[in-house]
């Protein structure tokens, strides 16, 4: 079993409405020192061991599905699993 951790984040040029709302909420909660919040997505995908072109597959899944290239970018880490 192979575990792939994928992080999808909004490109810097795109306003993050949810992040902004969360930042405001942290201030109301009494944490004025939070100066920026960006919200992204985090995925854990498990692959059966026999994945041959793992990196290529992951790239394709990210480009085609998990991230929207117009507004998002992604990175990932591959970890073996028991």
């Amino acid at each position, binding site marked *: 079993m192979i575990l792939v951790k994928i992080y999808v984040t909004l490109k810097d*040029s*795109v306003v993050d*409405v*949810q992040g902004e*709302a969360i930042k405001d909420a942290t201030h109301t909660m009494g944490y004025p020192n939070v100066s920026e919040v960006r919200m992204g997505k985090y995925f854990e995908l498990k692959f059966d061991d026999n994945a041959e072109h793992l990196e290529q597959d992951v790239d394709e899944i990210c480009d*085609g*599905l*998990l991230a*929207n290239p*117009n*507004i998002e970018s992604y990175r990932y880490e591959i970890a073996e699993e028991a």
Partner: protein
Amino acid sequence: MKFAVIVFPGSNCDMDLYYAVSKGIGQEADLVSYKEESLDGYDGILIPGGFSYGDYLRSGAIASHAPIIKEVIRLANEGKPVLGICNGFQILTEIGLLPGTLTNNRQNCFICKQVELVVENNKTIFTNKYNLNEKIIIPIAHGEGRYYCDEATLRELNENNQVIFRYGQNINGSVEEIAGITNKQGNVLGMMPHPERAIESILGSDDGLKLFKSMLETQKNGVHI
């Protein structure tokens, strides 16, 4: 004129579109499953609103991998009219037939209400029955309807008159109040507001009817652009 209304798992405005075509303009419409692999014989493609695949992950993202999509792209490239409403618009951007992206409303919640739209371009196959700058009342119902694109795309949309509808007031944070756009060729329209919910005055407005009539008019008499 024969329309295909594409039905994805989770589409929920498919019947509304079906009625808009069959009752509203008296034309033939079929509900076509996302599993189908051919759209031969259809003169127009309609992609309905709703929550395809629950809008999980990102609205329209999962639907853009359905088998039918290849055919939608083929017909679009052949110049057939393709109209995506709400979730349909989101799907059209996901598959790249239209530029930009629909993201969370500025208010960060779903909004359903009647809104005013301004017809920005009435020389299209979808809007030739409207007057230029006509103000029409069409309902919106979406949570992810804030249109976003980068500056270059925006410039291009404006230069090519691809912005078809703008909101009278910026209702959800869309760039330049954009509510609906076409592709460069003008045969693919995506819009967040629901013209198919505005075809009978008893339901609050029949301003959406002209959009469907425009498509029919074009089919009969060609586009007067």
